[in-house]
């Protein structure tokens, strides 16, 4: 039984209905026995340690819990082998721990699990043996006692990666962007404050990190800032080089020199059925316009330039972006925004779901952007990543900025402490 990275649950059905989808619990009449369904579901939920009513709809529970429902569904079919594809990609640390402990628990009950993951610390924690796959080939299988992160990384990259993060010597200038009291409310439940009086600033040549758990309002902050793309009742002020700017629509935000590369490139970042060329030009067609028409040869030239400079691995720029790997797709997204020539780039989870080698390339690109005098905001749930590339890190919790740390003062412990800081009630 395979559990995919993108969960295969129907959001409008209840937990119990999802668990027994295509395995419906029938009574003697041949119709669905709802009492039995819900009762059995409760038992399975207890096994995976999920305290929820089985009649709750999937859309009303968080991703972490949905993941557990998937496992409960697998258990209902009496699986012997469970394959989990990036099970913790969308989970926060607490939920991840719970899930990994559950897998260890299942192991004791005789259920074998295969976890596909790029989170090395997790693998080290739970795996009895690790097989590294690169370019469609199994590179090596390592027994538990020999597993080290360095060894896995070496296998994944195919070369020794002394530094997981490229060197970065900051040349920080004056303030380029300042956000004051930025507040946004939930689009459906307008009484809920999702982004709460956020204040932050970015200077030229600076890489600023935003650390926060899932649901802390990181993406919500970025998207509400970028053309009010998220939320309602948005308030607050934005200053660029000290003078106030408006970002009420995406095109206004772009005109004012902002760019936002989304955390979910397949849904929000790329037109997967179009080629690389047209994706790169998508946000800047006006630049290519000549006498009312798009200058397509120029577009081709520009795209080709980015293909070379960003090292997008494709034979030419006419390849559809849907056929590229995650890392190359991300490079296309970054090309699109770099071509729009912004002053400040907000990169939301820029390395989510891409392999270690491509991550290094993305970090290099981020460094070069900073070196070119841009302000870069990196949103990430991977602390080592933020600690590895940023000059300054803000922590975000429940929509509020709870701390600000120059990189010298930032340690994982203090960051996590501030990321989990709750509002005084």
């Amino acid at each position, binding site marked *: 039984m395979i559990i995919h990275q993108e969960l295969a649950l129907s959001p409008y059905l209840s937990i119990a209905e999802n668990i027994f989808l295509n395995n419906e619990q029938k009574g003697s009449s041949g119709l669905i026995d709802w009492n039995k369904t819900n009762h059995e579901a409760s038992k399975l939920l207890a096994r995976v340690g999920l305290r929820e009513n089985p009649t709750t709809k999937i859309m009303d529970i968080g991703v972490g819990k949905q993941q557990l429902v998937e496992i409960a569904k697998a258990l209902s079919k009496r699986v012997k082998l469970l394959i989990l594809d990036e099970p913790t990609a969308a989970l926060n640390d607490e939920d991840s721990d719970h899930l990994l402990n559950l897998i260890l628990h299942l192991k004791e009950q005789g259920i074998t699990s295969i976890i596909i993951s790029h989170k090395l610390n997790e693998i080290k924690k739970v795996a009895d043996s690790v097989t590294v796959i690169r370019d469609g080939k199994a590179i090596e299988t390592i027994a538990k006692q020999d597993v080290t992160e360095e060894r896995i990384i070496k296998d994944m990259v195919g070369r020794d990666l002394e530094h997981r993060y490229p060197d970065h010597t900051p040349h920080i200038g004056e303030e380029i962007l300042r956000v004051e009291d930025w507040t946004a409310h939930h689009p459906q439940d307008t009484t809920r404050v999702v982004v709460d009086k956020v204040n932050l600033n970015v200077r030229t040549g600076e890489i600023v990190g935003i650390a926060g758990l899932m649901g802390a309002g990181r993406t919500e902050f970025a998207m509400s800032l970028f*053309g009010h793309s998220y939320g309602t009742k948005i308030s607050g002020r934005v200053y660029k080089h000290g003078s106030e700017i408006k970002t009420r629509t*995406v*095109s206004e935000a772009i005109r004012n020199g902002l760019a936002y590369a989304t955390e979910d490139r397949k849904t929000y970042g790329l037109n997967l*059925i179009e080629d690389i060329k047209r994706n790169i030009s998508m946000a800047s067609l006006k630049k290519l316009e000549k006498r009312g*028409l798009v200058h397509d040869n120029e577009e*081709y030239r520009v795209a080709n330039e980015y293909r*070379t400079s960003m090292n997008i691995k494709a034979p030419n720029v006419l390849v559809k972006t849907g*056929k590229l790997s995650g890392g190359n797709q991300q490079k296309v997204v970054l090309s*699109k925004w770099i071509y729009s020539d912004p002053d400040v780039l907000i990169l939301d989870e820029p390395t989510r779901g891409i392999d270690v080698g491509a991550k290094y390339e993305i970090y290099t690109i981020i460094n070069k952007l900073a070196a070119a005098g841009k302000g870069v905001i990196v949103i990430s749930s991977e602390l080592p990543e933020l600690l590895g590339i940023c000059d300054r890190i803000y922590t975000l919790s429940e929509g509020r900025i709870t701390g600000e740390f120059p990189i010298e003062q930032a340690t994982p412990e203090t960051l996590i402490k501030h990321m989990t800081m709750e509002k005084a009630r």
Partner: protein
Amino acid sequence: MSDLDTKPAAGAQINPSTSKAASWFSHVITDLGKNGIFIALVLVVVLFSILTDGILLRPQNISNLIVQNGYILVLAIGMVMVIIAGHIDLSVGSVAAFVGACSGVFAVHWGLPWWLAIVLSLGIGALVGVWQGFWIAYVGIPAFIVTLAGMLIFRGLALVVLGNSNIGSFPAEYRALGNGFLTDLFGEFELDPLTLGVAALAVLALVVQQVRTRRGRQKYGQEVEPLVWFVVKLALITVAIGFFAYALAAYKGIPVTLIVLAVLVFVYGIIMTRSVFGRHIYAIGGNRHAAELSGIKTRKVDFYLFVNMGLLAALAGLIFTARLNLAGPKAGDGFELEAISAAFIGGAAVQGGVGTIAGAIIGGLIIGVLNNGMSIMGIGIEWQQAVKGMVLLLAVAFDVYNKRRSGGR
């Protein structure tokens, strides 16, 4: 941007070991694949000219083919644009009928000059588009629902305007839109010299444009097809245009409908392939969220798409009314389905993001040839319907199969 990483891209070079002949062949194959729909049209034409003992390709019939299908082709242009953006429009038949009825009131009842009646009618079509576009783009109701409602609303309004009777006897200039011909400007000849001249100019313009595009691409280091294949293709197109022009010249000359169509295809072709607006339509159809977050004003684009569709539906209504010289309650019945079929046969994707004006036109012509060919053969309307349904299904199935084979999604 050149200050960014400058490693050479992997696979940047095209494999040099591929022999010349093989690359030649692969170009022909890809072109055949891309133009599969065009080949389908040729096959359908060949099939029916055999089945009808050549009647299909007689000058008079070729001329009729254009005039009879003009309004469907006009609708197909707007429809494929709507479909590319991921919408649908079910109301075009009713809108055509409604506008036809209004034009009857303007031109016949009120006795307005023909040009004023046409301008007013087109304005009404645009207003209908504004109405539907408002609900779809700014209120956010799915186009399927809005235009399904529109289908009923405008059919009803057409009947209200007609008041239970037909409106007929339109002015001659108005009627020319549907069945006029541009001919005999240089006196009477066996073959109309104007038609042949226009065709020659069209071929010349096409060749010049193609050569310039090719040179431009070469200048920018893009791969171009082998010269021989390029020339062969142009020659084939020239022969086709020549044959077509000969047929028209031997009959009555250039139909006015064809002139209207040619202008539309040219203008909308450029809009869809080269203008920012066209690009935005494809971007929206491919991924609406990504388009929005790239600063594309999706609502505005949606709105203008439907305004445009209303305008083209009005034009189709005028052409149809002019051709029949009658605005009646049954006008435009089923037009929407033929236009939608044309777009899909022409390669548009149901999910949006894919499709071309040229494809939709060829799709429309395939339907037209099927209609015309089967009518000549004396096949009843009931079987014609069934056959057209099958063709639509097979065309889309073929497309889906092709995409799956090539690994696309």
